[in-house]
């Protein structure tokens, strides 16, 4: 009995330590972004702000026009997510239900896409997008984003669709529903929580993406948040307070949404990966 107790004390101590390290950067971004003028450089080790201010946020949003970049990112991520989830739901369901033998080969092809170096794809993407006149356009970036969002989503969704018992579908089929009706009216509602989680995960990944946005968007007004943030680095007019305020605006949506779906994603990854 005593042994169990020491074990859990050690576990708690370890976890508290890890939690502190995990959370510190986020906390430090938030605190740094609201500290009064001069405090960031005046007293680097002070934790709590002496005076509070939203000046950095106002500067970033008003003078740097950061809202334009937020808008770009929201549009690009939303459209990518919508397309990717539609395509991936159909594919994942198809793989699980209609391809008993080929399904595992298809999953393997998808796994292969995960090992493609993004830097390898970046070169042809930039050449092709240049030829098609899609550099600095949202359409161009959305197309490129499907390259990682679709395979990921199929991976996660395969795990969720596999949990649907085939008997339920057979009942619907007997009632005269065709494949597509069965899918939309019977199967999708059953896996809705998984689909939502996958959609949010896709959204976060697109929102966070950096490399493709770097090579395809070089006009400040077209940039996504990740690349716009990077262009702030080293700019003379900025101090760390501005950079932390902008960082907070970019990281908070990701973190909040991610915390909401974390349980679903973990299970989905394991199921989609292993049993295929």
């Amino acid at each position, binding site marked *: 009995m005593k042994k169990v107790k020491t074990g*859990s004390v*050690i*576990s708690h101590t*370890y*976890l508290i330590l*890890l939690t502190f*390290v*995990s959370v510190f950067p*986020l906390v430090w*971004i938030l605190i740094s972004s609201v500290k009064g003028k001069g405090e*960031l*450089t005046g007293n*680097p*080790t002070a934790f709590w702000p002496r005076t509070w201010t939203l000046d950095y946020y106002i500067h970033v949003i008003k003078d740097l026009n950061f809202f334009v970049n937020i808008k770009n990112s929201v549009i690009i991520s939303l459209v990518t997510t919508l397309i990717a989830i*539609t*395509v991936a739901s*159909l*594919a994942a*369901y*198809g793989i699980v239900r209609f391809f008993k033998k080929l399904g595992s080969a298809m999953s393997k*092809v998808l796994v292969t896409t*995960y*090992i493609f*170096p*993004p*830097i*390898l*794809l*970046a*070169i*042809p993407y930039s*050449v*092709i997008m240049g030829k098609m006149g899609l550099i600095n356009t949202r359409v161009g970036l959305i*197309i490129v984003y499907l*390259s990682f969002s*679709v*395979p990921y989503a199929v991976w996660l969704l395969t795990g969720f669709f596999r949990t649907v018992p085939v008997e339920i579908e057979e009942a619907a089929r007997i009632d005269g529903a065709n*494949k597509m009706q069965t899918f939309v009216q019977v199967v999708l509602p059953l896996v809705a929580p998984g689909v939502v989680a996958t959609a949010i995960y896709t959204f976060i990944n697109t*929102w966070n993406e*950096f*490399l493709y946005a770097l*090579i395809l968007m070089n006009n400040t007004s077209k940039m996504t*948040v990740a*690349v716009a*943030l*990077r262009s702030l*680095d080293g700019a003379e007019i900025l101090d*760390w307070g501005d*950079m*932390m305020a902008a*960082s907070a605006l970019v990281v908070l949506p*990701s*973190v909040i*949404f*991610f*915390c909401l779906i974390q349980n679903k994603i*973990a*299970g989905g990854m*394991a199921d989609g990966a*292993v049993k295929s």
Partner: protein
Amino acid sequence: MAKKNYTRWLFVLPAMVIVIALFIYPICSSVLYSFTNKNLIKATYKFIGFKNYVEVFKDSGFWLSFFHSLKWTVLSLAGQIVVGFTAAMALKRIEVGKGVYKTLLIIPWAFPSIVIAFSWKWILNGVYGFLPNILLKLGICETTPQFLTSGTMAFITLVMINIWFGAPMIMVNVLSALETVPRDQYEAAQIDGARPWQSFYYVTVPHIKMVVGLLVVLRTVWIFNNFDLIYLITGGGPAGSTQTIPLYAYNMGWSTKLIGRSSAVTVLLFIFLMIICGIYFAVINKWEREESK
């Protein structure tokens, strides 16, 4: 019956089109470019055979980057697995506060790379950074430590940041794998007088090794391919000491404009990763066969 086989393709067709258009076509053009003198700012190019590959192999910068990549991958992966695994075991062990810990521990996973870069560059800043100053204040260091401006230190710091970022994913997946291990098997092992490490080896490991194995494959590839973190935190510096293959290829393509040679580098990178994955998958398939016996 014929109709049934026909409509099922409609489900997978859109995804297949995307995979072909966004993977097959680009890899083919990359391979093609790698045999040409294609330049980012010139329209015409001609075939030059294996010259790009020869040039790449002759460049000591390439081999140095390759060595950095290996070091970066092995150290980051080992760190992520150790931290992720121990965290998962600790979470499995406790009864209260599990959900809270888990939610807070996965926060790094959600960080965009640019924010990882900004936040750590700020925390580690050589003049105003929190960590250097607190180490100075506590008397642990005599001068303000420079985490990102000296070669070896910058490399270690990058690996640490990568562990911070990647461990949560390992943790979450290992934890969900641990939870699939039937409790009665542990009880049976205990009745048989198994020590803790024995029940770990004979009960836990066989249940989770498939998930963990696959995770290790994917993690290896992701870490090897990582561009953002290094590019944004050190840019490959100071003096090339943190330059890995993806950065080498990027500089070749976008700074020196040599698309052809850059393609050769990325094709080599891809071949290397395929070989690594081939080995991994051979091992995993072996496990699978053993399991089904």
